[in-house]
């Protein structure tokens, strides 16, 4: 697209949208929102970037290697966090039972494994959105 105003506006707004998405992912356990909603916001900021500036520039920002990596290891990261329970001798994906320090409710470090799992799910959802978009647009 060759619209100057659209490009300038996107250059101003899109970084804030992307950072806001990561904020929603990382604060999923203390405020409304969560990993799924935040992942969608991050993915949509990248989709809007490659819609406005062209697929080639979007591809340059997010190479296929990165997408394949996040796509493959997001779920593995989830399983790895679940293995913490098994290492401690309690069921799979246990959080309080595994003796993880739950912290002070309301602070960013509370929740034990929940914030780590949520970060993995958020990255996973974002990479799914972007991969589907790129695959369908390049056809």
């Amino acid at each position, binding site marked *: 697209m060759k619209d100057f105003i659209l490009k300038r506006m996107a250059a101003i707004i899109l970084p804030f949208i992307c950072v806001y998405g990561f904020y929603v992912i990382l604060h*999923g*356990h*203390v*405020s*409304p*929102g*969560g*990993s799924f909603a935040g992942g969608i916001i991050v993915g949509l900021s990248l989709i809007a970037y490659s819609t406005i500036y062209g697929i080639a520039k979007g591809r340059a920002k997010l190479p*296929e*290697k990165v997408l394949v990596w996040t*796509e493959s290891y*997001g*779920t593995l990261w*989830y*399983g790895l966090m*679940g293995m913490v329970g098994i290492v401690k001798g309690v069921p*799979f*994906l246990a*959080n*309080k039972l595994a003796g993880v320090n*739950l*912290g*002070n*409710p*309301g602070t960013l470090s*509370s*929740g*034990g494994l*929940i914030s780590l*799992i*949520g970060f993995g*799910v958020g990255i*996973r*959802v974002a990479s*799914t959105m972007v*991969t*589907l978009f790129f*695959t*369908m647009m*390049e*056809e």
Partner: protein
Amino acid sequence: MRIRSFLLLLLALPVIYGVLIAVAELPPYGMPDNPVHNQVSERYISDALDDTGVLNMVTAIVLDYRAYDTMFETIVLFTATLAVVITLKTRKGEGER
């Protein structure tokens, strides 16, 4: 043909009657003493903060109580992406890796 559809209507009428009876027996929407408000939701509301240390109860349920469900949800996302990429990806992009 017309006789056959008439017979099918005759067969469908008892089913419709049964479904309407079942709908009439449903509890009114949103009442506090409905059967859906049982000890499970009470347990979540009262113990979620102690069990998980998380203020957002939806996150507590999705990522702690129902962690298995969310894990296989991410696997569903992975499978969907895999299917789309396998179906749509052409050989042209193969050299870019």
